[in-house]
């Protein structure tokens, strides 16, 4: 849950990038870290395995300026995507204000996307949060692989699998090239800002 500090005139908002393993969550954060280097005062924190997979989480705080006189600090987290790390994913979701679900467009990853979304619903439920009520943006990642002849699911198929019930804003993206990475983040920020404005009122 985001914290409004009236003394420091500062708001901290927690956004978690969630999704199946090797889906591009860390790559999203790496791109944002590079693109907005001048706004990010610190180094990105990554807790990785020896095989360079996320073990606990990645963390990147981004200052996005002032709203109603409050400094807005967006704290971006990823979860480890590997199936065996669900206990850790649950921990990272604690107090989340917004979620970017990074799904993999490759046909062979269809089941993993669906399972990850279902597990996210359960994990949020364990924190008394309803997936349908939390600000959420869907990102269908790896659309660039189409040019390399890899079989991808269509946008409609992705929507049918993951977004029928949620009806969340959706972007096709390529975290590797940066395509729609910032657009996804902006959409996420605007979603959480609506919640902040309501809180102020």
């Amino acid at each position: 849950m985001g914290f409004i500090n009236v003394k420091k005139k500062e708001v901290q908002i927690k956004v978690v990038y969630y999704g199946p393993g090797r889906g591009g969550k860390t790559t999203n954060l790496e791109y944002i870290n590079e693109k907005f280097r001048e706004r990010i005062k610190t180094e990105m924190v990554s807790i990785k395995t020896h095989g360079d997979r996320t073990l606990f989480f990645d963390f990147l705080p981004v200052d996005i300026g002032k709203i109603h006189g409050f400094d807005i600090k967006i704290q971006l987290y990823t979860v480890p995507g590997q199936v065996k790390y669900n206990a850790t994913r649950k921990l990272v979701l604690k107090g989340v204000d917004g979620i970017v679900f990074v799904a993999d467009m490759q046909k062979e990853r269809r089941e993993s996307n669906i399972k990850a979304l279902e597990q996210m619903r359960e994990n949020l439920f364990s924190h008394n949060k309803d997936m349908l009520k939390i600000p959420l943006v869907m990102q269908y990642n790896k659309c660039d692989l189409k040019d390399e002849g890899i079989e991808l699911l269509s946008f409609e198929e992705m929507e049918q699998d993951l977004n029928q019930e949620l009806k969340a804003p959706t972007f096709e993206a390529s975290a590797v090239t940066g395509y729609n990475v910032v657009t996804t983040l902006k959409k996420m920020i605007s979603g959480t800002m609506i919640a902040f404005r309501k809180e102020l009122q």
Partner: protein
Amino acid sequence: MYGVSQEQLEKIDTVLTDELLSIGVHNVIVIDTAGNTISQLDRGECSCDVASFAALAAGNFAAVDAMAKLVGEEEFSLHFHRGESESIHFSRVNEDLLLITIFGNDVSLGFLRLKTVEVIDRIREIWSK
């Protein structure tokens, strides 16, 4: 999203200054279990990245808590890491808050633990109002 009053935050800062910074603690941070920083005070010697520290501390605390439950414990009451020149002590204040102190070799762990018990009681009282 949630917040507390400016008066509550000021009272917390006063308690941290009077009870912990005054005994030589280098840095004291109150965070919530989601990793947000509620209050942070130091003696002007702190160069650490507080936002990252808070995120890691909340994750670390939650992981140790989950491990305690796996071995049938309600919680591990002492979370402490000793370094060569800086050590870190973690305590749970209440269901929402954690208190972290960073201190050097000139502060005794026993005395710090006594002080943190006192501070925790007072923060709980301030927070509940």
